[in-house]
């Protein structure tokens, strides 16, 4: 842990720094690959829509003791009361059998419940039945998409106002879309069932992704504002330093956010089986991980790229470049040991208006105080009393 703290220190001071903004091509390629994979999953395999989107009836038999031949037992029980419904039977967790069928009428489903309870030798109350109209999923999806659009509009507005540039909103939204596309793609690739609960998951990912991006951007804002004031770093350098400084925070936060979610995933897989909890947790796990990645590696480089032609950024970068060149020139001049450095033609910035000379170095290479270089100070000359 001590080393982690040291890493934090080094990242803060800039002693150690990951060139995140500079290597943006690399990150773009990484996410392009991720996105392409997601699209392949989405278009190739397609999403596995749950019963809420297809419509039908679902029956769950819990606390089953004897699971031998559960498929046949269930199928037989269902066929008896409701023929032609093509039941699909799956085992969930240790002792729960899930039967999904086409749409059953009320009376039918009561009958099937009773039959299933008898077939598996459990009480009727252990059998749950649910009926889902096909429009249910649609309604939820439509609502969710509406909510999404409103949310994005509002958030872009708020962010644009807060950061005083729409480009931060734009970069944050791109990162957001990236996360959502990737999460949805993962669902398609892994064949995870899409239920209304996973819709909730997607929406939460939106929230988290934006949240994380804002925290990073707030640091970027701070750092770049400082750069604007002092003209010591270019915009890109300031942004990169900000990302590096906030890296420890990002890691800590994502670990802390992922720990409980990971626990749910584990508990869900091992004990509960498919359901609201597991769907949500899986979506969130992937989303949070990708969200953290995108706010650092996508949003920030993109922001720098978007802003690099802004007037104030161009001015800042120009200033910094001139300063760097000037310093280099001075260093050259000093190396040539030309004595006083006030002849520098580029010395027009306010900092040097006072005619501050460049630092000098003696032969040893170490910096020497100007006092020492110039030799003893000239004392006021006053004629001796005898000559006055």
């Amino acid at each position, binding site marked *: 842990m001590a080393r982690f703290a040291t890493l934090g220190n080094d990242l*803060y001071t*800039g002693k150690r720094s990951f060139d995140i903004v500079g290597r943006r091509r690399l990150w773009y390629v990484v996410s392009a690959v991720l996105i392409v994979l997601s699209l392949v999953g989405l278009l190739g395999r397609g999403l596995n829509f749950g019963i809420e989107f297809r419509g039908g009836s679902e029956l769950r038999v819990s606390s089953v003791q004897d699971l031998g031949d559960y498929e046949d037992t269930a199928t037989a029980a269902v066929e008896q009361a409701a023929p032609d419904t093509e039941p699909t039977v799956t085992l969930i967790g240790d002792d729960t059998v899930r039967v999904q069928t086409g749409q059953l009428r009320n009376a039918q489903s009561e009958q099937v419940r009773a039959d299933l309870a008898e077939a598996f030798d459990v009480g009727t109350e252990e059998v749950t039945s649910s009926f889902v109209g096909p429009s249910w999923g649609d309604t939820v999806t439509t609502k969710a998409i509406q909510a999404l659009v409103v949310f994005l509009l509002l958030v872009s507005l708020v962010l644009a106002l807060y950061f005083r540039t729409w480009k931060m909103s734009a970069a944050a939204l791109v990162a957001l879309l990236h996360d959502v596309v990737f999460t949805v793609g993962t669902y398609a690739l892994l064949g995870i069932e899409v239920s*209304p609960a996973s819709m909730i998951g997607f929406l*939460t990912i939106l929230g988290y992704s934006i949240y994380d991006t804002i925290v990073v951007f707030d640091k970027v804002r701070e750092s770049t504002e400082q750069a604007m004031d002092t003209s010591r770093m270019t915009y890109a350098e300031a942004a990169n330093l900000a990302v590096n*400084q906030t890296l420890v925070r990002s890691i800590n936060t994502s670990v802390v956010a992922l720990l409980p979610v990971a*626990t749910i995933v584990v508990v869900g897989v091992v004990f509960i089986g498919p359901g*609201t909890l597991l769907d949500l947790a899986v979506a969130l796990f992937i989303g949070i991980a990708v969200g953290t990645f995108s706010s650092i590696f996508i949003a920030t480089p993109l922001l720098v790229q978007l802003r690099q032609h802004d007037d104030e950024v161009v001015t800042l970068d120009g200033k910094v470049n001139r300063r760097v060149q000037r310093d280099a020139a001075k260093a050259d001049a000093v190396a040539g040991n030309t004595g006083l450095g006030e002849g520098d033609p580029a010395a027009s910035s306010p900092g040097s208006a006072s005619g501050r000379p460049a630092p000098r170095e003696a032969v040893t290479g170490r910096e020497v*105080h100007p006092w020492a270089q110039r030799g003893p100070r000239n004392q006021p000359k006053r004629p001796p009393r005898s000559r006055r």
Partner: protein
Amino acid sequence: MALKPRNRKPARTLGALVALIVLLFGGLVAATQWADPRAQLTPLLGLDLAGGRQIVIEPVVSGSSEASEEQVQQAIDIIRRRIDGSGTAEAEVSRLGGDNIAVAIPGNPSAAQLEALSRSSQLQFRPVLVAQPVGADAEQPTEQPVLPLPDSFQPEPSVEGQEGSPDAPTTEEGPDDAETSNGPFPEGLRAQDDADRTEDVPGLPEDGVAPEPSDASDLAQITPELEEEFLALNCAENTEGERVAAAAEDEPVVACATDASEKYILGPVELTGAAVQDATAGLEQGQGGSTTGRVQVALDLDSQGGDKFAEITARLFQYPQGQAQNRFAIVLDGSAITAPGINEPISGGQASITGDFTMETAEILANQIKFGALPISFDTLTSEQISPTLGGEQLRMGIIAGVVGLMLVFGYSLAQYRALGLVTIGSLAVAAVLAYLAVSLLGWAANFRLTMAGVTGLIVAIGITADSFIVYFERIRDEVRAGRPLRYAVDTGWARARRTILISDAVNLIAAGVLFWLSESSVKAFAFTLGLITVIDLIVIFMFTHPVVSMLANTRFFGEGHRWSGMDPERLGAKRSTYLGRGRVNLPPVKTKPSRAEIEGGVV
């Protein structure tokens, strides 16, 4: 112990937090002791955790693609009445976003009950055959429904033509006699049998149910079974609406008034709400166009309905005013919302109902008529039976997952932040207490039920809440690294962290708000929990974490950066030599001022 001056403000804030918690807890305890209905100390559980049936119904208004706002409201009222009528305790009817209605019924309702819920509903006009006041109102029929006897003098619900006959007297004695014919039903029935004058009314629809009734008002329709049913009918229990609404349109039925003040035997349906074009509440216009000050409900029928209505009123008018058969009932979903007498035959399709209305009750009646006019049928979108064992199991697992997750978070923050991690643990504990109290109180106040989605929201919230502390601590560390003593690092770090926390929580609140207003069922519950947690997060960081950290910064252990405090300047790289900066490259943000060497060089 006297507080150090710099500890006073944080101490005050902490005091406020304690007061808030005590207040919430006190409120909860008070609510469990004295409130009606009683609150419980634990959060209310949603159906998916407690077990029961959850149905989502969509009202479909025939003829229009989208149900209007008022129609949905009406539909919800109807469903609510049906649920109440079925006597299911604790059933819950709520509106989902948009038009959908969620019905949550604990336990295991029968298939027939469910079927009855989603029956379609329409406004019906039925002639009254027999009316009898019931309950406490029986002695003093002050309410609108008029008893059919000629002595008393209650100006009560009466229907008059508006355009059809403008000269018609606007006040009718809604003669009423509670005293004389107030007797038990059989007497009334006999009396009316004698007064049977229906023969002379020609051309009215035959219903063929009862032994050759000559028209819809014919008392011959009343079979002994119906009579028995009527006698047994107890309106106070309001259990009949369902059956009445389900009754065939062309058969006589027994029904109660919506306010349970009267019970009726009603003839077959003669007109449905489809004929109603509009119904408005307003002041009655007198002859000269001046208002009489009485509130009326004006009814506007379409031409076919108007003709039919003219026939009906002509027939009913032949019965003496005040007699039950002079009246017709407007029935909505099995109960009579009003049953005015007829003051005159109404042709032209414009009728007005006057009576003891206040503007408010008239509005309600007008709306009931207007929006109940179109038949509303109900599509079942989902119907889900959840067994409590499954739900309980999920809740248990969810809680286990939450606790384990919380432990991991504790461990991690202790490892990362040493003693400061304890503050994280304390903050999360405070957040947990607040969340528990809030959810329990909301369960009582707003019937908020904790569902699986809500539990998940709470667990996910652990991470988001903890993030605020991480942002805060990292900012403090940044300041310490920049060389500030901890005491000042806390202040400046807080100023920066506060901005970040506020904006990110604001976005979370927006997300929760948008999801809450615009989405459905489980998404809504999730959004609510997320919003709740965000608010709690803000309360905790502002009222607990920051004050505690500021106070701790004044202790020796933290203030001097003990190596286990998590704020050890040495460990954080803020060594004095580094700070003063031998290498310019390493500390750009700190070296904002030109170095001494540079200044001197310039001056000298």
